[in-house]
Protein backbone atom coordinates (compact mmCIF):
# COMPACT_ATOMS: atom_id res chain seq x y z
CA UNK A 1 0.00 0.00 0.00
CA UNK A 2 1.42 3.38 -0.92
CA UNK A 3 1.14 6.31 1.49
CA UNK A 4 -2.08 8.29 1.55
CA UNK A 5 -3.86 10.88 3.63
CA UNK A 6 -7.12 10.10 5.40
CA UNK A 7 -9.98 12.45 6.21
CA UNK A 8 -13.57 12.02 7.27
CA UNK A 9 -16.33 13.83 5.46
CA UNK A 10 -19.07 15.36 7.57
CA UNK A 11 -21.60 15.51 4.74
CA UNK A 12 -21.80 15.10 0.97
CA UNK A 13 -20.85 18.70 0.23
CA UNK A 14 -17.84 18.40 2.53
CA UNK A 15 -16.78 15.16 0.83
CA UNK A 16 -17.00 16.67 -2.65
CA UNK A 17 -15.14 19.81 -1.61
CA UNK A 18 -12.29 17.70 -0.24
CA UNK A 19 -11.96 15.63 -3.40
CA UNK A 20 -9.34 17.19 -5.61
CA UNK A 21 -7.61 15.28 -8.32
CA UNK A 22 -7.82 11.82 -9.78
CA UNK A 23 -5.79 10.24 -6.98
CA UNK A 24 -8.52 10.76 -4.38
CA UNK A 25 -10.93 7.94 -3.56
CA UNK A 26 -14.02 7.90 -1.43
CA UNK A 27 -13.79 5.18 1.21
CA UNK A 28 -16.83 3.16 2.28
CA UNK A 29 -16.48 -0.12 4.13
CA UNK A 30 -13.16 -0.76 2.44
CA UNK A 31 -13.93 -4.39 1.62
CA UNK A 32 -12.83 -3.96 -2.00
CA UNK A 33 -10.78 -0.73 -2.01
CA UNK A 34 -8.48 -1.63 0.90
CA UNK A 35 -7.76 -5.00 -0.70
CA UNK A 36 -6.99 -3.37 -4.06
CA UNK A 37 -4.75 -0.80 -2.37
CA UNK A 38 -2.83 -3.55 -0.60
CA UNK A 39 -2.30 -5.22 -3.98
CA UNK A 40 -1.34 -1.80 -5.42
CA UNK A 41 -3.98 -2.14 -8.12
CA UNK A 42 -5.44 1.03 -6.62
CA UNK A 43 -2.91 3.69 -5.64
CA UNK A 44 -4.82 6.67 -4.22
CA UNK A 45 -2.87 9.35 -2.38
CA UNK A 46 -5.94 10.57 -0.48
CA UNK A 47 -8.92 8.77 1.04
CA UNK A 48 -12.08 10.55 2.09
CA UNK A 49 -14.12 8.44 4.46
CA UNK A 50 -17.81 8.75 3.52
CA UNK A 51 -19.20 6.16 5.92
CA UNK A 52 -20.53 8.98 8.11
CA UNK A 53 -22.83 10.22 5.35
CA UNK A 54 -26.50 9.33 5.04
CA UNK A 55 -27.30 5.67 5.67
CA UNK A 56 -31.04 6.20 5.81
CA UNK A 57 -33.29 3.46 4.43
CA UNK A 58 -36.89 4.54 4.03
CA UNK A 59 -40.02 3.65 2.15
CA UNK A 60 -41.07 6.58 -0.01
CA UNK A 61 -44.70 7.78 0.00
CA UNK A 62 -45.09 6.41 -3.55
CA UNK A 63 -44.10 2.90 -2.44
CA UNK A 64 -40.46 2.91 -3.46
CA UNK A 65 -37.27 3.07 -1.43
CA UNK A 66 -34.63 5.68 -0.74
CA UNK A 67 -31.32 4.27 0.47
CA UNK A 68 -28.43 6.45 1.60
CA UNK A 69 -25.15 5.44 -0.04
CA UNK A 70 -23.53 4.76 3.35
CA UNK A 71 -26.18 2.19 4.32
CA UNK A 72 -24.53 -1.14 4.98
CA UNK A 73 -25.52 -4.10 2.86
CA UNK A 74 -26.82 -6.00 5.89
CA UNK A 75 -29.03 -3.06 6.87
CA UNK A 76 -30.65 -3.02 3.44
CA UNK A 77 -31.18 -6.79 3.35
CA UNK A 78 -32.85 -6.85 6.76
CA UNK A 79 -35.00 -3.75 6.37
CA UNK A 80 -38.67 -4.67 6.61
CA UNK A 81 -39.71 -2.57 3.61
CA UNK A 82 -37.08 -4.27 1.46
CA UNK A 83 -37.95 -7.77 2.64
CA UNK A 84 -41.67 -7.14 2.18
CA UNK A 85 -41.90 -5.13 -1.03
CA UNK A 86 -38.64 -5.87 -2.87
CA UNK A 87 -37.66 -9.41 -1.82
CA UNK A 88 -35.32 -9.83 -4.80
CA UNK A 89 -33.14 -7.05 -3.40
CA UNK A 90 -32.84 -8.76 0.00
CA UNK A 91 -32.22 -12.08 -1.73
CA UNK A 92 -29.52 -10.66 -3.97
CA UNK A 93 -27.66 -9.07 -1.07
CA UNK A 94 -27.71 -12.16 1.13
CA UNK A 95 -26.54 -14.28 -1.81
CA UNK A 96 -23.36 -12.20 -1.95
CA UNK A 97 -20.10 -12.15 0.00
CA UNK A 98 -20.06 -13.24 3.66
CA UNK A 99 -21.92 -11.84 6.66
CA UNK A 100 -18.81 -10.01 7.88
CA UNK A 101 -18.34 -8.32 4.52
CA UNK A 102 -22.03 -7.42 4.24
CA UNK A 103 -21.77 -5.78 7.67
CA UNK A 104 -18.96 -3.56 6.40
CA UNK A 105 -19.82 -2.92 2.75
CA UNK A 106 -21.84 0.16 1.83
CA UNK A 107 -24.42 0.49 -0.93
CA UNK A 108 -22.38 3.14 -2.74
CA UNK A 109 -19.27 0.99 -2.55
CA UNK A 110 -21.13 -2.06 -3.81
CA UNK A 111 -22.09 -0.16 -6.96
CA UNK A 112 -18.47 0.81 -7.56
CA UNK A 113 -16.75 -2.44 -6.66
CA UNK A 114 -14.33 -3.66 -9.26
CA UNK A 115 -14.05 -6.94 -11.10
CA UNK A 116 -12.55 -9.99 -9.40
CA UNK A 117 -10.80 -11.03 -12.64
CA UNK A 118 -7.61 -12.72 -11.38
CA UNK A 119 -5.55 -11.07 -14.14
CA UNK A 120 -6.72 -7.66 -12.96
CA UNK A 121 -5.40 -8.46 -9.47
CA UNK A 122 -2.12 -9.97 -10.65
CA UNK A 123 -0.05 -6.80 -10.86
CA UNK A 124 3.28 -8.56 -11.24
CA UNK A 125 2.48 -11.40 -13.62
CA UNK A 126 -0.37 -10.44 -15.95
CA UNK A 127 -1.32 -7.91 -18.55
CA UNK A 128 -4.56 -6.03 -17.96
CA UNK A 129 -6.09 -3.19 -19.96
CA UNK A 130 -8.13 -2.11 -16.97
CA UNK A 131 -5.04 -1.65 -14.81
CA UNK A 132 -2.70 -0.56 -17.57
CA UNK A 133 -4.70 0.88 -20.50
CA UNK A 134 -3.37 -0.41 -23.79
CA UNK A 135 -1.14 -2.96 -22.10
CA UNK A 136 -3.09 -6.01 -23.28
CA UNK A 137 -5.36 -8.63 -21.70
CA UNK A 138 -4.25 -12.07 -20.54
CA UNK A 139 -7.79 -13.21 -19.75
CA UNK A 140 -8.99 -13.36 -23.37
CA UNK A 141 -6.70 -16.30 -24.10
CA UNK A 142 -6.29 -17.39 -20.49
CA UNK A 143 -8.35 -19.13 -17.82
CA UNK A 144 -11.65 -17.43 -18.56
CA UNK A 145 -14.23 -19.78 -17.09
CA UNK A 146 -15.58 -16.98 -14.86
CA UNK A 147 -15.54 -14.30 -17.55
CA UNK A 148 -18.13 -12.48 -19.63
CA UNK A 149 -20.18 -13.80 -22.54
CA UNK A 150 -22.24 -10.62 -23.06
CA UNK A 151 -21.07 -7.04 -23.62
CA UNK A 152 -17.34 -7.78 -23.51
CA UNK A 153 -14.75 -6.57 -25.99
CA UNK A 154 -11.37 -7.82 -27.27
CA UNK A 155 -9.74 -5.50 -24.73
CA UNK A 156 -11.58 -6.80 -21.64
CA UNK A 157 -13.76 -9.79 -20.76
CA UNK A 158 -14.09 -9.16 -17.01
CA UNK A 159 -17.46 -9.44 -15.28
CA UNK A 160 -19.04 -7.05 -12.81
CA UNK A 161 -19.11 -8.95 -9.50
CA UNK A 162 -22.09 -7.44 -7.68
CA UNK A 163 -25.24 -9.35 -6.79
CA UNK A 164 -27.04 -6.33 -5.34
CA UNK A 165 -26.61 -4.38 -8.58
CA UNK A 166 -28.35 -7.12 -10.57
CA UNK A 167 -31.47 -6.73 -8.45
CA UNK A 168 -31.21 -2.93 -8.65
CA UNK A 169 -30.94 -3.14 -12.45
CA UNK A 170 -34.12 -5.22 -12.58
CA UNK A 171 -35.82 -2.62 -10.37
CA UNK A 172 -34.84 0.37 -12.56
CA UNK A 173 -33.00 1.91 -9.62
CA UNK A 174 -31.84 5.52 -9.85
CA UNK A 175 -28.44 6.60 -8.54
CA UNK A 176 -28.18 10.03 -6.93
CA UNK A 177 -24.81 11.74 -7.16
CA UNK A 178 -23.14 14.96 -6.13
CA UNK A 179 -20.17 16.71 -7.68
CA UNK A 180 -18.67 20.19 -7.55
CA UNK A 181 -20.94 21.08 -10.48
CA UNK A 182 -24.06 20.02 -8.57
CA UNK A 183 -26.36 17.07 -8.09
CA UNK A 184 -27.74 14.71 -10.73
CA UNK A 185 -29.34 11.32 -11.12
CA UNK A 186 -28.22 8.40 -13.30
CA UNK A 187 -30.21 5.27 -14.05
CA UNK A 188 -28.44 2.26 -12.50
CA UNK A 189 -28.65 0.57 -15.90
CA UNK A 190 -26.66 3.48 -17.36
CA UNK A 191 -24.15 3.84 -14.51
CA UNK A 192 -21.66 1.21 -15.71
CA UNK A 193 -20.01 1.39 -19.12
CA UNK A 194 -19.24 -1.48 -21.43
CA UNK A 195 -15.47 -1.86 -21.90
CA UNK A 196 -15.14 -1.33 -25.67
CA UNK A 197 -11.64 0.13 -26.14
CA UNK A 198 -11.48 1.70 -22.67
CA UNK A 199 -12.08 -0.90 -19.95
CA UNK A 200 -10.36 1.41 -17.45
CA UNK A 201 -13.47 3.62 -17.62
CA UNK A 202 -16.04 1.63 -15.68
CA UNK A 203 -18.79 4.12 -14.93
CA UNK A 204 -20.17 7.39 -16.27
CA UNK A 205 -19.21 9.17 -13.04
CA UNK A 206 -16.75 12.04 -13.30
CA UNK A 207 -13.65 12.16 -11.07
CA UNK A 208 -14.75 13.41 -7.65
CA UNK A 209 -18.43 12.66 -8.27
CA UNK A 210 -19.93 11.01 -5.19
CA UNK A 211 -22.83 8.56 -5.02
CA UNK A 212 -25.11 9.87 -2.29
CA UNK A 213 -28.17 7.61 -2.52
CA UNK A 214 -29.95 4.91 -4.47
CA UNK A 215 -33.65 5.27 -5.18
CA UNK A 216 -35.86 2.32 -6.04
CA UNK A 217 -39.06 3.37 -7.81
CA UNK A 218 -42.31 1.66 -6.82
CA UNK A 219 -43.01 -1.65 -8.58
CA UNK A 220 -46.14 -3.39 -7.38
CA UNK A 221 -45.24 -6.81 -8.77
CA UNK A 222 -41.78 -6.79 -7.17
CA UNK A 223 -43.41 -8.76 -4.35
CA UNK A 224 -43.37 -11.66 -6.84
CA UNK A 225 -39.70 -11.65 -7.49
CA UNK A 226 -36.66 -13.84 -7.05
CA UNK A 227 -32.90 -13.85 -7.18
CA UNK A 228 -31.18 -17.08 -8.12
CA UNK A 229 -27.43 -17.44 -8.06
CA UNK A 230 -25.54 -20.37 -9.56
CA UNK A 231 -21.99 -20.72 -8.23
CA UNK A 232 -19.23 -23.25 -7.69
CA UNK A 233 -19.98 -23.69 -3.98
CA UNK A 234 -23.23 -23.18 -2.14
CA UNK A 235 -22.14 -20.08 -0.23
CA UNK A 236 -19.56 -17.29 -0.35
CA UNK A 237 -18.63 -17.47 -4.03
CA UNK A 238 -19.08 -15.18 -7.01
CA UNK A 239 -21.78 -15.99 -9.55
CA UNK A 240 -21.27 -18.08 -12.64
CA UNK A 241 -24.76 -16.95 -13.55
CA UNK A 242 -27.35 -15.08 -11.55
CA UNK A 243 -30.87 -14.00 -12.41
CA UNK A 244 -33.01 -11.32 -10.79
CA UNK A 245 -36.59 -11.35 -11.99
CA UNK A 246 -40.11 -10.17 -11.21
CA UNK A 247 -43.26 -11.05 -13.09
CA UNK A 248 -46.85 -9.86 -13.37
CA UNK A 249 -49.36 -12.21 -14.94
CA UNK A 250 -52.69 -11.52 -16.59
CA UNK A 251 -54.40 -14.89 -16.57
CA UNK A 252 -52.11 -17.20 -18.50
CA UNK A 253 -50.09 -14.45 -20.14
CA UNK A 254 -47.31 -12.15 -19.05
CA UNK A 255 -48.47 -8.59 -18.43
CA UNK A 256 -45.05 -7.31 -17.37
CA UNK A 257 -41.68 -8.71 -16.44
CA UNK A 258 -38.25 -7.61 -15.27
CA UNK A 259 -35.11 -9.65 -15.82
CA UNK A 260 -31.48 -8.81 -15.04
CA UNK A 261 -28.44 -11.05 -15.21
CA UNK A 262 -25.23 -11.28 -13.20
CA UNK A 263 -21.96 -13.12 -13.78
CA UNK A 264 -22.28 -12.80 -17.54
CA UNK A 265 -21.28 -9.27 -18.44
CA UNK A 266 -19.04 -6.31 -17.57
CA UNK A 267 -22.06 -4.61 -16.01
CA UNK A 268 -25.31 -5.65 -14.34
CA UNK A 269 -27.10 -6.87 -17.46
CA UNK A 270 -30.69 -5.87 -17.98
CA UNK A 271 -32.33 -8.41 -20.31
CA UNK A 272 -34.32 -5.85 -22.30
CA UNK A 273 -34.76 -8.15 -25.32
CA UNK A 274 -36.09 -11.04 -23.25
CA UNK A 275 -38.52 -8.73 -21.47
CA UNK A 276 -39.81 -7.38 -24.78
CA UNK A 277 -40.41 -10.89 -26.12
CA UNK A 278 -42.28 -11.91 -22.97
CA UNK A 279 -44.68 -8.97 -22.57
CA UNK A 280 -48.01 -10.31 -23.78
CA UNK A 281 -46.67 -13.82 -24.36
CA UNK A 282 -48.04 -16.97 -22.76
CA UNK A 283 -46.51 -17.70 -19.37
CA UNK A 284 -45.19 -21.11 -20.34
CA UNK A 285 -41.78 -22.76 -20.00
CA UNK A 286 -41.47 -22.62 -23.80
CA UNK A 287 -42.01 -18.85 -23.87
CA UNK A 288 -39.53 -18.35 -21.06
CA UNK A 289 -36.93 -20.43 -22.86
CA UNK A 290 -37.54 -18.58 -26.14
CA UNK A 291 -37.07 -15.24 -24.40
CA UNK A 292 -33.85 -16.44 -22.78
CA UNK A 293 -32.55 -17.61 -26.15
CA UNK A 294 -33.35 -14.25 -27.74
CA UNK A 295 -31.38 -12.45 -25.03
CA UNK A 296 -28.46 -14.86 -25.29
CA UNK A 297 -28.29 -14.76 -29.08
CA UNK A 298 -25.72 -11.99 -28.60
CA UNK A 299 -23.54 -14.19 -26.39
CA UNK A 300 -19.90 -14.54 -27.49
CA UNK A 301 -18.43 -17.22 -25.24
CA UNK A 302 -14.69 -17.66 -24.74
CA UNK A 303 -12.74 -20.92 -24.76
CA UNK A 304 -13.43 -21.57 -21.09
CA UNK A 305 -16.98 -20.37 -20.52
CA UNK A 306 -19.18 -21.77 -23.30
CA UNK A 307 -21.21 -23.55 -20.62
CA UNK A 308 -22.53 -20.21 -19.40
CA UNK A 309 -24.81 -19.80 -22.42
CA UNK A 310 -26.88 -22.89 -21.69
CA UNK A 311 -26.58 -22.40 -17.93
CA UNK A 312 -27.95 -18.87 -18.26
CA UNK A 313 -30.82 -19.99 -20.50
CA UNK A 314 -31.84 -22.71 -18.09
CA UNK A 315 -31.51 -20.48 -15.04
CA UNK A 316 -33.63 -17.72 -16.58
CA UNK A 317 -36.28 -20.28 -17.58
CA UNK A 318 -36.30 -21.92 -14.16
CA UNK A 319 -36.62 -18.62 -12.29
CA UNK A 320 -39.51 -17.45 -14.45
CA UNK A 321 -41.26 -20.82 -14.18
CA UNK A 322 -40.96 -20.62 -10.41
CA UNK A 323 -42.39 -17.11 -10.32
CA UNK A 324 -45.24 -18.00 -12.68
CA UNK A 325 -46.24 -20.90 -10.43
CA UNK A 326 -46.14 -18.71 -7.36
CA UNK A 327 -48.14 -16.03 -9.12
CA UNK A 328 -51.04 -18.23 -10.31
Amino acid at each position, binding site marked *: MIEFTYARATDAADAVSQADGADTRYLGGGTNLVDLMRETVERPTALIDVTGLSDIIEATPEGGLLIGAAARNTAVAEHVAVRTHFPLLSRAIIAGA*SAQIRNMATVGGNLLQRTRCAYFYDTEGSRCNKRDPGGGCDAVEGFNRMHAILGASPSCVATHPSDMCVALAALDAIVHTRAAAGERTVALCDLHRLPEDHPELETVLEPGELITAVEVPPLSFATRSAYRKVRDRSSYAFALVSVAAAIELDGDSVRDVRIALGGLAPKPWRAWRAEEVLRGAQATPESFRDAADVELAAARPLAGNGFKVELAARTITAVLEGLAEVAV
Partner: protein
Amino acid sequence: MAITINGVREQVPGDPRVSLLDFVREHLGLYGTKKGCDQGACGACTVLVDGERILSCLALAVQYDGRSVTTIEGLSSDGALHELQQAFIEHDGFQCGYCTPGQICSAIGMVTELRRGVPSHVTGDLAAEEIELSFDEVRERMSGNLCRCGAHNGIVDAINVVYAEPSR
Protein backbone atom coordinates in the same frame (compact mmCIF):
# COMPACT_ATOMS: atom_id res chain seq x y z
CA MET B 1 -8.45 9.81 18.60
CA ALA B 2 -8.98 6.52 20.41
CA ILE B 3 -10.39 3.06 19.78
CA THR B 4 -11.65 1.00 22.70
CA ILE B 5 -10.18 -2.49 22.49
CA ASN B 6 -11.61 -4.97 24.98
CA GLY B 7 -12.58 -2.11 27.25
CA VAL B 8 -9.23 -0.30 27.09
CA ARG B 9 -8.85 3.00 25.25
CA GLU B 10 -6.00 2.90 22.76
CA GLN B 11 -4.55 5.65 20.58
CA VAL B 12 -5.35 5.26 16.90
CA PRO B 13 -2.15 4.69 14.88
CA GLY B 14 -0.79 7.73 13.07
CA ASP B 15 -0.26 5.89 9.78
CA PRO B 16 -3.67 5.36 8.13
CA ARG B 17 -2.34 2.29 6.29
CA VAL B 18 -2.42 0.22 9.50
CA SER B 19 -5.26 -2.29 9.39
CA LEU B 20 -7.32 -2.98 12.47
CA LEU B 21 -5.84 -6.49 12.37
CA ASP B 22 -2.23 -5.28 12.40
CA PHE B 23 -3.15 -2.72 15.05
CA VAL B 24 -4.40 -5.29 17.56
CA ARG B 25 -1.66 -7.82 16.77
CA GLU B 26 1.48 -5.81 16.12
CA HIS B 27 0.77 -2.59 18.03
CA LEU B 28 -1.10 -4.00 21.03
CA GLY B 29 0.34 -7.51 21.16
CA LEU B 30 -3.08 -9.14 21.09
CA TYR B 31 -2.16 -12.16 19.00
CA GLY B 32 -5.46 -14.03 19.40
CA THR B 33 -6.89 -12.45 16.24
CA LYS B 34 -5.28 -14.27 13.34
CA LYS B 35 -4.00 -13.16 9.94
CA GLY B 36 -5.01 -15.82 7.44
CA CYS B 37 -5.40 -14.57 3.88
CA ASP B 38 -5.24 -10.81 4.63
CA GLN B 39 -7.68 -10.26 1.75
CA GLY B 40 -11.13 -10.94 3.17
CA ALA B 41 -11.49 -14.54 2.04
CA CYS B 42 -10.98 -16.66 5.17
CA GLY B 43 -12.55 -14.99 8.22
CA ALA B 44 -9.66 -15.75 10.59
CA CYS B 45 -9.38 -12.04 11.47
CA THR B 46 -13.04 -11.63 12.48
CA VAL B 47 -13.60 -9.28 15.42
CA LEU B 48 -16.67 -7.59 16.89
CA VAL B 49 -17.12 -3.83 16.50
CA ASP B 50 -19.91 -2.53 18.71
CA GLY B 51 -21.19 -6.12 18.64
CA GLU B 52 -21.11 -6.51 14.84
CA ARG B 53 -18.74 -8.98 13.24
CA ILE B 54 -16.34 -7.56 10.67
CA LEU B 55 -13.07 -8.53 8.99
CA SER B 56 -10.26 -6.65 10.68
CA CYS B 57 -7.88 -7.27 7.74
CA LEU B 58 -10.00 -5.12 5.42
CA ALA B 59 -10.58 -2.45 8.06
CA LEU B 60 -8.28 0.54 8.31
CA ALA B 61 -7.82 1.14 12.04
CA VAL B 62 -8.22 4.89 11.59
CA GLN B 63 -11.79 4.33 10.36
CA TYR B 64 -12.73 2.84 13.74
CA ASP B 65 -11.89 5.87 15.82
CA GLY B 66 -14.47 6.13 18.59
CA ARG B 67 -15.69 2.56 18.17
CA SER B 68 -15.52 -0.35 20.60
CA VAL B 69 -13.75 -3.50 19.42
CA THR B 70 -13.90 -6.92 21.05
CA THR B 71 -11.31 -9.56 20.16
CA ILE B 72 -11.09 -13.13 21.37
CA GLU B 73 -9.06 -11.88 24.35
CA GLY B 74 -12.04 -9.79 25.45
CA LEU B 75 -14.51 -12.67 25.69
CA SER B 76 -13.31 -14.39 28.85
CA SER B 77 -13.98 -12.82 32.21
CA ASP B 78 -12.03 -13.31 35.44
CA GLY B 79 -10.07 -16.11 33.81
CA ALA B 80 -13.20 -18.08 32.93
CA LEU B 81 -13.73 -19.02 29.32
CA HIS B 82 -16.73 -17.70 27.42
CA GLU B 83 -19.34 -20.45 27.21
CA LEU B 84 -18.79 -20.73 23.46
CA GLN B 85 -15.04 -21.20 23.97
CA GLN B 86 -15.83 -24.01 26.40
CA ALA B 87 -18.27 -25.56 23.93
CA PHE B 88 -15.63 -25.51 21.17
CA ILE B 89 -13.39 -27.57 23.45
CA GLU B 90 -16.13 -30.02 24.36
CA HIS B 91 -17.35 -30.52 20.78
CA ASP B 92 -14.02 -30.67 18.96
CA GLY B 93 -14.68 -27.33 17.26
CA PHE B 94 -11.06 -27.07 16.16
CA GLN B 95 -7.92 -29.01 15.41
CA CYS B 96 -4.98 -26.67 14.73
CA GLY B 97 -6.86 -23.73 16.23
CA TYR B 98 -5.80 -21.06 13.76
CA CYS B 99 -9.32 -20.20 12.58
CA THR B 100 -10.84 -20.59 16.06
CA PRO B 101 -10.74 -16.99 17.39
CA GLY B 102 -12.38 -15.80 14.17
CA GLN B 103 -14.94 -18.61 14.30
CA ILE B 104 -15.91 -17.76 17.87
CA CYS B 105 -16.15 -14.00 17.34
CA SER B 106 -18.09 -14.63 14.14
CA ALA B 107 -20.53 -16.98 15.87
CA ILE B 108 -21.28 -14.42 18.57
CA GLY B 109 -22.00 -11.78 15.94
CA MET B 110 -23.99 -14.30 13.94
CA VAL B 111 -26.35 -15.09 16.80
CA THR B 112 -27.01 -11.38 17.35
CA GLU B 113 -27.92 -11.02 13.66
CA LEU B 114 -30.17 -14.06 13.71
CA ARG B 115 -32.05 -12.90 16.80
CA ARG B 116 -32.46 -9.46 15.23
CA GLY B 117 -34.18 -11.15 12.27
CA VAL B 118 -31.50 -10.67 9.61
CA PRO B 119 -32.37 -13.19 6.89
CA SER B 120 -29.80 -15.47 5.30
CA HIS B 121 -29.53 -17.15 1.91
CA VAL B 122 -31.23 -20.27 3.31
CA THR B 123 -34.02 -18.49 5.19
CA GLY B 124 -37.24 -19.68 3.57
CA ASP B 125 -39.60 -16.88 4.53
CA LEU B 126 -38.18 -13.36 4.29
CA ALA B 127 -41.19 -12.02 6.20
CA ALA B 128 -40.55 -14.25 9.21
CA GLU B 129 -39.97 -12.29 12.39
CA GLU B 130 -38.15 -15.13 14.09
CA ILE B 131 -35.59 -17.36 12.46
CA GLU B 132 -34.72 -20.71 13.94
CA LEU B 133 -31.09 -21.55 14.59
CA SER B 134 -31.09 -24.63 12.37
CA PHE B 135 -28.12 -26.65 11.14
CA ASP B 136 -28.49 -25.12 7.66
CA GLU B 137 -28.79 -21.58 9.01
CA VAL B 138 -25.61 -21.94 11.06
CA ARG B 139 -23.68 -23.41 8.13
CA GLU B 140 -24.77 -20.66 5.76
CA ARG B 141 -24.23 -17.83 8.23
CA MET B 142 -20.77 -19.11 9.16
CA SER B 143 -19.63 -19.59 5.54
CA GLY B 144 -17.30 -16.61 5.81
CA ASN B 145 -15.10 -18.54 8.24
CA LEU B 146 -13.02 -21.26 6.64
CA CYS B 147 -11.51 -24.18 8.58
CA ARG B 148 -8.82 -26.05 6.69
CA CYS B 149 -8.78 -28.83 9.31
CA GLY B 150 -12.42 -29.57 8.54
CA ALA B 151 -13.79 -29.06 12.04
CA HIS B 152 -17.01 -27.54 10.75
CA ASN B 153 -19.30 -30.19 12.19
CA GLY B 154 -17.85 -29.63 15.65
CA ILE B 155 -18.12 -25.87 15.19
CA VAL B 156 -21.81 -26.10 14.26
CA ASP B 157 -22.44 -28.44 17.20
CA ALA B 158 -20.74 -26.07 19.64
CA ILE B 159 -22.76 -23.12 18.39
CA ASN B 160 -26.01 -25.05 18.54
CA VAL B 161 -25.38 -26.31 22.07
CA VAL B 162 -24.77 -22.81 23.38
CA TYR B 163 -27.40 -20.86 21.44
CA ALA B 164 -30.19 -23.25 20.45
CA GLU B 165 -32.23 -22.48 23.58
CA PRO B 166 -34.22 -19.28 22.91
CA SER B 167 -34.11 -18.40 26.61
CA ARG B 168 -30.35 -18.13 26.77
